[in-house]
Structure formats: C-alpha cells, structure tokens
C-alpha cells in the first residue's frame, strides 16, 4: 500500500471512530427534540463511552474467551472495512481493490462473532438476542448480495472503486431504474443490519422486543464501551457505504491535503444528513413484530431482484 493510501486509511479510521458516537448523539438529539424533550446533547455518547471505559473489566462466570474477543473482532472488522472503503478518497482503496462481497462478509463476520458471545453467556437473554440477530442477518444477506449484483453488472466489477468512478464519470448512471431500486433495497437492508426502527429499537430494554440489546446484556465496563463503539461505527459504515454507492459526489480522487479536507467534509455532511433523515423517520415508526420483519425483508429482496432485471434490460 502506498503512503497516500495509508494516510487516507488512517484518516478515514480516525474520522469514523471519532465521528460515529457523535452521529449517534446527533440522531438521539434529533429524536428528542422531535418528541419535545430537551435531549442529553450531542456529546453524550462520548461521555458514556469514557465512563464505561474507566470501569473495572468484568467477566461473567462461565464465559470463555469467545465472550472477551467478540467485541474486539467486531470492532476490528468494522475498522478493516473503514480502512479500505472509498469514503473520503478513492486513494484509500488498495491495489487489490475493495470488493463489495468482502466488505459485506467482513461486517457479517463481526455480527456473527457477537452472536456467538451472546450464546456463550448461557443465559436466556443472550441466546434469545443471538437467535433473533442471526435470523435477521440471514434474511438480510440475500438482499445485500443481490443488490450488489445489480449495481455491479452495468460496471462489470464488484470493486467499490470501480462502481464509484463509473458514476462519477457518468452521473446519469445514478438515476437509472436499477440504481434507484437497488438504493431502496439496500436502504432497507441497512436499517435491518444496523438494528434501527422498525426492525429493532436501539433504545428498548424490554425483554420481548430486544434484539441487539439482549445479545449484549452481559457486557459491562470497557467491554461494553467496545460494543457500543463498534455498533456506532457499524451504523456510520453502513450509512457511509450507502452514500458512497448512490451519491459518490465529493469523494476525493487522490490524497492531496485539499482534496482530503473536502472529502472529509462532504462525507461528514452526507452521513449526518442520512443519519438525521433516519432519526426523523424513526419518530413516526413503531417497531415491527419480530415475525413481521421477514415480510419487510422479503419486500426489499424483491426490490433488489427487480433492480437486477432492470439492470439487464435498461442497463
């Protein structure tokens, strides 16, 4: 990897790591304001993380190293994706390319590791959360992969850099029917993958409705801080991927100082706007029953399939 690539990767990692909790803060603040509450402020997630990180590390009895390494692995896979995705600049993409299938599979690997940790605790909560999370994950996968298929067919490559440059060179590609359908399908998949309403309620602590929160119930202190940070970063990564695929304007083509600064600014604005839209939308939504979620995901899968058909006939 070149020096420019390494600098860009480090910049992206730093940006996402620092910015993700702030994004969560912004989204909570928007939700609070829309509901008529004052809100805790944008910085609250960072304050929580600091507080958690300073606590004594705790190992629940009977858990193995799976429980201890899962948050690390989840964070690491997310960081690995951030390092090579063309979020701020295409220079971050290594010579071998950033394959979309690899990106999706890496993020799945992190989620699967956390589900194993949920099972490792041996409590009913952990198992329940893991079971639900894995079910949703298994059902989102077809949508993700078929939507990627639809996006990559006109370009002839599953490399993120190729897809981005093809739209940058020919902006009319961004509004082809295939792209629009794939955009909606991937949007639903992102909502499901990041555990937002209506698939999962990130702020619930009620047994019957918890998905992600039930799975990580046994985590405390620094481990919980890692889990929270990883979840926040996954949200940014999924929103960032969506923005990169469907609105790639503003991504720097090289690693010059000015280009990086502009790219950073544009990426921040894009992800914040998407996050704000998601938060505002969530105010009007209730959580779906768990067994209605497959219907939503089946709908997104059909959209993805239509996108493939459209890309064959109109692409």
């Amino acid at each position, binding site marked *: 990897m070149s020096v420019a690539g390494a600098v860009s990767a480090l910049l992206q990692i730093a940006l996402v790591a620092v910015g993700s909790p702030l994004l969560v803060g912004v989204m909570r603040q928007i939700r609070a304001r829309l509901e008529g509450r004052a809100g805790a402020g944008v910085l609250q997630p960072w304050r929580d993380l600091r507080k958690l990180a*300073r*606590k*004594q*590390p*705790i*190992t*629940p*009895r*009977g858990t*193995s190293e799976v429980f201890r*390494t899962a948050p*690390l*692995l989840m964070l*690491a896979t997310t*960081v*690995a994706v951030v*390092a090579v995705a063309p979020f701020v600049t295409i220079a971050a993409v*290594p010579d*071998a390319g950033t*394959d979309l*299938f*690899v990106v999706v*599979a*890496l993020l*799945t*690997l992190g989620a*699967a590791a956390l589900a*194993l940790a949920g*099972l*490792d605790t*041996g*409590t*009913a909560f952990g*198992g*329940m959360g*893991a*079971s*639900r999370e894995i*079910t949703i*994950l*298994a059902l*989102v*996968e*077809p949508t*993700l*992969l*078929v939507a990627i*298929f639809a996006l990559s067919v006109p370009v*002839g*490559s*599953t*490399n993120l850099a190729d897809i981005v440059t093809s739209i940058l060179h020919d902006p009319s590609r961004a509004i082809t029917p295939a792209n629009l359908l794939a955009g909606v399908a991937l949007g639903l998949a992102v909502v499901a993958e990041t555990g937002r309403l209506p698939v999962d309620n990130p702020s619930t602590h009620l047994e019957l409705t918890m998905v992600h929160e039930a799975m990580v119930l046994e985590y405390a*202190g*620094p481990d919980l801080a890692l889990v929270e940070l990883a979840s926040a970063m996954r949200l940014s990564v999924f929103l960032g991927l969506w923005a990169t695929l469907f609105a790639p304007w503003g991504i720097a083509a090289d690693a010059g100082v000015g280009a990086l600064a502009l790219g950073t600014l544009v990426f921040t604005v894009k992800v914040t706007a998407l996050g704000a839209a998601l938060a505002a939308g969530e105010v009007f939504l209730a959580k779906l029953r*768990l067994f209605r979620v*497959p219907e939503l995901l089946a709908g997104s*899968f059909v959209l993805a399939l239509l996108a*493939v*058909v459209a890309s*064959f006939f109109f692409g």
Partner: protein
Amino acid sequence: MNIVATAIVGTMVVAVATATAALLVPRPARSAVVGVGTALCGAAGMAAGIAALAGQVWSAAVAGLLPLAGVVLTVDTLSGVFLSVIGAVGIAVGIYGIGYARHGLDGRWVQAMEPLFVAAMLLVPAAGSVGTFLVCWELMALTSLLLVLAEHSHRAEVASAARWYAVMTHLGFVAILIGLLVLTGHADNDSFPALRVAASTLSPTTAGLVFALTLIGFASKAGILPLHAWLPRAHPEAPSHVSALMSAAMVTLGVYGIVRVGLDLLGGGAQWWWLLVLALGAVSAVYGILQAAVGTDLKRLLAYSTTENMGLVLIGVGAGGLFAAAGNTLLAGLALTAALLHVINHAAFKTLLFLAAGSVLHATGSRDLDSLGGLRPLMPGTTAAFGLGALAGSALPLGPAFVSEWLLLQALVHGLAAGGVATAVMMPIAVATVALTAGLAVATFVKAFGVGFLARPRSEQAANARESPPTMLAGMGVAGVACVVLALTPVLVLPAVGGASGRVFGTTDPVSAGLLTVRLQGFAGSLAPLLVAVTVVAATMAVAVLARLFAARHRTRVSARLWDCGAGPLSARMEYTATSFAEPLQRVFDDVVRPEHDVDITHYRESRYLVNEVSYRLRVPDRVEHRLYRPVLAGVRAWGRAGPRLANGSVHLYLGYGFAVVCGALILLVVTR
C-alpha cells in the same frame, strides 16, 4: 515409470496389505496398523493427484485383470483434483481412526474395509474405461456400505440407514450403468477416448438420454435433491471418520462423474442439461442448508450441509456448462474453477467438522445439540477444531469456503449477459440462492458451535466430557491446517485447479493467483485473502492494545454473577437450546420445512382444570422425502402385498399361469407372423 503410476500402484499395494494385516494383527495393535496404512494409502493417492495436476498424464491397460473388458486406468488433471482431495481426506481420517476405532470399532472386517474404501475411491477418478469405472464405483459403494453397518449391533437405526443407502446407491448405479452402456453401444470399445469420438456422432436425443441417466446416478451419489434421502441417514449413523470419508470424499465423486461424463466425454451438450444441473444445485443448496439450520442432530446437520455444498458446486458446474454452451469458454472455466475449488475447500472443512463431531460423540455419547454445551473448558482441542470448521463452513472471510464462493459469485455476476435470456433469468436466481445459503449457513454454524460447545453443559454426559486421545486431535489438526492454508494461500491450489478446469473447456487458466491476490483473467475482479486476514488480525490486536491503554486504571478482570433477574442461580434448563435458537428461522420458513408439533396435556383425575403434565414434541421431517418417497414406498408395499395373493402356493395356480403364458406366447406368434 512415472510418479502417478508408482503412486497409484503403491496405493493399491498398501491398501491390500493393510486390509490383510487388519485380519491378522491382534486387536490392541490393529487400529494403529490400519490407521497408518490408510494414511499411507491416502498420501500415495495425494501424491498421484499432485503429480497429475503438475501435468503428468498416465494411462495403462491391463487386459486380463477383469473379464471381457480388462482394466484401463487413465489419470489426467481433472482426475488429479479428485485424487488429491480423496488422498488428503484419507490422511486425516487414517490418523484420526487410530484413536477413534479403539472404542468398539476395531473388529477385523470393519478395520479391513477402511483402507479398501479409500483405495476404491481413489480408483474411481483414475478409471479410464466404462468397465473399470463401474467396477470401482461398485467397489466403493460396497466397502462404504459395510463401513456404515459397522455399529449395527449398537443401534437399530443403523440397519435402516444402511438399507436406504444400499437401495439408493444401487438404483443410482443402475442409472449410471444404463447411461454409460448406451454411450458405449455407439463406440468402438469402452475406453474414454473411444467414447469421446463416439459422442460427437450421437444424436441430441441420445446424448440427452445418456446425460440424464448418468445425472440421476451421480446426483444421487452427491446427495442432490430429490435423491438425497440416503445422505442424512447414512452419514449420522456411520462411524464419524467414515462419515468424514463419505461426506468429504465420496460425494464429490458424484460431481466428478457429472463433469467427466457431461463436459468431457459428451463434450458439453445442450443448454437444457446445464440449466437442469444449475436448478438442481440451487434447490439442493437452499433446501440442504434450511434443514441444517433447523436441525438439532449434530451429524445430521453436517450431512445436510454437505447437500448444500454439493448444491453450490453444481451451481458452478451448471453455470460453467451454460457459459460453454453459449460459447464463452473463459467464463465457463471460471465457473468450473470455483466449483472445483469449492470441492477442495468443502473436503477440508467437512473432514474437520465430522472428525470434531466424532470426538464429541466419543466423549459424550450424544449427537443431540440440545444436550450438549459447555465443552470449551473440557475439550479445548476439539472446540478449536470445530470452531475453525464452523468459520469455514459459514463461508465467512478468513475461512476457505469464502474464496470459492467469491469466485462463484464473480462468475455469476459476469455471466448475466453471457448467454441471452436463459442466463439472464438464471444468474440472479443463482446469486440469490448463494446469498440465502450464505446467510443461513452463518445461522447454522453459529448455532452448532455456540450451542454445542459454548455456554454451560446441558446434560450430565456433556458435563463429564473428556478430551479425545492425541491421535484423534492430530487427525483434526491435519484437516485444520489444510483449512487454514486453503483460506490464506489459495495460490497453492488455484493455478492447478484453474488449469484443470481450463483444460476441460480448452481455454487458458481463468484465474491468475499471485501470493497475495487472486485475479480473474479477462474480467475485473480481485481478492486478497491473505491481506484480508492480516488486516483483521492486525486490527484486532491494535484495538486490544488501545483498549488496554485506555482502561489503564484497572488491569485485572474480576468475575461476576450472570444476570439472573435476581431469581437465584441460573440452571442449564434456562439456557437457549438449538431448537429454541432455530425457532425464529423455522417459523419464517414454516411453509417450506413444515414442522410437526405435538402437544400432549394430561389432567389430574380430580379436575380437568388442573394440568398434571404437558409434553411438547417438535419434529422437522424431511418434506421432500415425505412427499416424494412415501408414494413410491407405498406402491412397492402394495405390490409386495399383492405378491402372496398371486403366488399362494397352489400348484394348480402355477400350472395355470404356465398354461396361460404358453397360450399367450403362441397367440402372439400367430398374430405377428
């Protein structure tokens, strides 16, 4: 004499010598002798395969060894792929068998069959004529059948499983026999070169018939729907190292047969052949993994996962044939490379998984995930082995299967516009299938590993489990190393596999693999498995170090009680089981798997408002089997019942039959002359 010849002859000599030794050596040393012999046999086979992949072609004919046809052996690169796979599995299984067979499996005949089974499997891809092929195929079926029966005195289900296996494998054999004989009937002799010449003169209908018949036989061996019914029965009931041999090596020979007959001997053929293969593969992949995702029997789950993986392989083979029929041989080579690489990867991780499952069975006596758990502190080696196998089986990065599935997806992505409407319809379906399979595979293996090995033991047997002997761990170690090597450096096998599949279609190697990156030839697309692994590991370590630095105040971990809602200590009965873990998925796919619920409530005699006992049973039957096989079996049974009425022992009736038949024959002669 070249290496291939030496190695193949060596395999046979070692196998026969080991089998003889198994009959003579006393019990204490028997399993060690057989294990070493089997491993040597596998090593020789692998050497032959590697030499063949390196470009050595060998052909030999021994006229008098079999009556009429003689024995013809031909080894080319395609055989080389399968020879190396079977040989490698043989090595791991041989070493593992030393320790595993000590417990009730060291009878003379069972032990003698093990090297013979490996040798028979090695001979199938080395066969160079129809006669030799069929004899070796049958030898393989018989030796494996005897090995499946090894534990018939312990469990009643073994006999039933073996009956299913025997019947289905022989029906498959009959189909292959008819198909190949039809083809041979048009050729000068039964050697493969003669068949290739004859195939070019066949009418499309005859060629289609030959392909369809052989496809039935080979698909049944590969455990493809709807001919899979023997597989989830025979694999769980066989001893675990035999399951590994069958699941990782034997079923792949079904794929070998389809590729050899369809693509090589018949030279491609019509589009519908490969659409059929692709569709069968897609259905098998989804159905197999769905059954695995809702199953709770560890070995049965692995058996269904075999059906899934063979389905994925057939998607690759079918796509390859489809692209070749459309004239795009480079893409066809890519699809076949993906399929063959998946055969290799599947062999590595399925061997590992079955051996680890055998180790669990050996230690706990149970295959039921609902009564396992908590094995991590008791059996660290086995847990690590199964964990690695589970990572590989779920086709996630850092596992070997990810590389082959990635290649398969690339072939499908680039193939959308390769062959008109047929591919335009099939490719999205195939991608969706692979995607759904990938998601469900993650669920399956998280369940198998998380419920089976982590958390707390759910039964007395699981709580008293002990780690397996070193030879078993060594066997798992061999398979585990193979998994890791295949995952990180596919460059070691990809050029050979790519060359073999390129040769089938007469093109160049469709994939160029450097040490770090795998690149497609002629298409955009590259993957760097080693870099991905290094990045993830480095990031994990960096995160760990940073987390420690950040939390510098407290370096020691304290242990604490699990959250139990303040209701006292949690018991194992409160844990999530495999059944409960799979319940949401089972509900989502309710219409496909059709589970059978059975609720039984008994009341107190005094009042029917007071419940004495509630029992709940859930079964997930194999629905395809239910719908397809039951009518056939009912028909056979009805025929069997009609038999006694037709043949009731009365000599008069039999004389009457004779009279009627003679009269009928005479009338027929009079009418037709």
